């Protein structure tokens, strides 16, 4: 029974991940069209356009992956075949797995059995996320090296240097988050954010760690290798960077890994800084507003509300990332590195030091 439940939560986590990715594909297409004041993808239709109406979102979501998956798979003759096959798998697998530790709801009780709406209740959740994100480098390095092509190679060297540089800023941001909550468990962190500050403001992480939020978000965008940090695949310079020699489903897997990273960053910011699945003032038995107003809600609806709130927050942050991607120009490589090492790193260190000192001071005050 335990195994079945665990399998189901794992499936849900994976499905959230896949669905968000596919939805992002659509949002990216239509969103970019919105930003650039054009119509965007509107041709995909069933039965050769015989239908009088456009099926819209479903169409794009179906047509794009289908098109990619049915393309010819090409492995260049000069490539290292085994590693060429391995790279997309390595790029996608750890990112899929990251979603397993993100809580998408509270612990619910069904038929006397506690079900944690988090596929893997790992006590070191934050470290797990960091570990999996750091494994993302391998897809880039191995893919570029195995292709044996100059563009791919340049892209992969650039990409991996960029990813590891911004990982430090990410790690520092996470350290300051851990300082605030005193735990590495993501579910625990989400739960702690259900409290209220001064009885009015929800105790979301962003109010405690605004700088860490900005750091994590920027580092995350850099980690996902999208504009303005899309140097590894800069179209105008490197064709497609490390994925130049890939086609069909392998190429789509690299694309997917970018989108999953966008979703991971959104999920991570949501969980760490914006209350995760928490809805302000919503408790297990319903809303308790600060004025004393109480609205009772059945627990099943509460759970649903929490899951929806998590997904909505995730989509908001995905959308912000897409807005950034379509608004800002690409950085130069020296600017990119200087930004990571000379701005984010010192700021991150200072933030850790400041939050540690402040935390201890505040605790001293509250104790006396």
């Amino acid at each position, binding site marked *: 029974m335990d195994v079945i439940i665990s399998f189901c939560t794992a499936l849900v986590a994976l499905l959230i991940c896949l669905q968000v990715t596919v939805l992002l594909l659509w949002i990216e297409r239509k969103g970019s069209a919105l930003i650039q004041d054009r119509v965007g993808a509107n041709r995909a239709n069933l039965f050769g356009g015989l239908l009088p109406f456009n099926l819209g979102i479903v169409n794009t979501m179906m047509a794009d992956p289908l098109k990619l998956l049915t393309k010819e798979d090409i492995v260049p003759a000069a490539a290292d075949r085994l590693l060429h096959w391995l790279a997309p798998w390595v790029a996608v697998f750890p990112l899929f797995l990251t979603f397993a530790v993100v809580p998408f709801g509270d612990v619910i009780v069904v038929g006397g059995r506690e079900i944690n709406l988090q596929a893997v209740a790992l006590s070191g959740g934050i470290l797990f996320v960091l570990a999996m994100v750091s494994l993302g480098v391998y897809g880039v390095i191995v893919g570029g090296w195995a292709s044996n092509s*100059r563009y791919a190679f340049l892209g992969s060297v650039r990409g991996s240097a960029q990813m590891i540089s911004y990982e430090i800023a990410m790690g520092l941001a996470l350290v300051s988050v851990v300082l605030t909550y005193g735990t590495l468990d993501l579910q625990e962190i989400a739960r702690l954010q259900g409290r209220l500050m001064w009885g009015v403001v929800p105790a979301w992480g962003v109010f405690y760690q605004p700088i860490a939020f900005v750091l994590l978000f920027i580092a995350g965008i850099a980690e996902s290798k999208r504009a303005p940090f899309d140097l590894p695949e800069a179209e105008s310079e490197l064709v497609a960077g490390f994925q130049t020699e890939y086609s069909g489903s392998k190429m789509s*897997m690299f694309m997917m890994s970018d989108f999953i990273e966008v979703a991971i960053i959104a999920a991570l910011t949501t969980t760490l800084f914006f209350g995760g699945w928490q809805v302000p003032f919503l408790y297990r038995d319903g809303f308790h507003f600060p004025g004393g107003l109480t609205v009772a809600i059945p627990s099943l609806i509460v759970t649903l509300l929490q899951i929806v709130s998590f997904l909505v927050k995730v989509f908001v942050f995905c959308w912000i990332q897409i807005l950034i991607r379509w608004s800002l120009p690409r950085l130069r490589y*020296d600017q990119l590195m200087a930004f990571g090492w000379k701005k984010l790193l010192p700021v991150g260190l200072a933030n850790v030091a400041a939050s*540690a000192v402040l935390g201890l001071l505040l605790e001293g005050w509250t104790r006396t």
Partner: protein
Amino acid sequence: MNPYAALLINAALCGLVATILLFMSRILGRRRPSKVKYEIFETGNPPIGSLRGTRFPVKFYLTAILFIIFDIEIVFMYPWAVAYRELGWFGLAEMAAFMGILAVGLAYIWRVGALEWD
């Protein structure tokens, strides 16, 4: 349930999906081999020489090495961050000394220009 068993189930599931995706084009896509298609893409020119043997600026390597050092520093910070309330000012002083020494290193590499990209 043991979280690591759950992790194993998850890994199996994710691995399976990733593998299916990987072979999708082999199964669904058609194959029309031609010599040019299997060449390395160099904007239409036939590739000259081999990639193996060309080398890259040492800068990239320096980045990786600095990354390792700071990564280790961050690794030490996590246990401290979890327990820093119990460790109190003493723990903070320890960590401050640790960070201070590494900040000296950062200042040095900054001064020397190891962070400059031209």
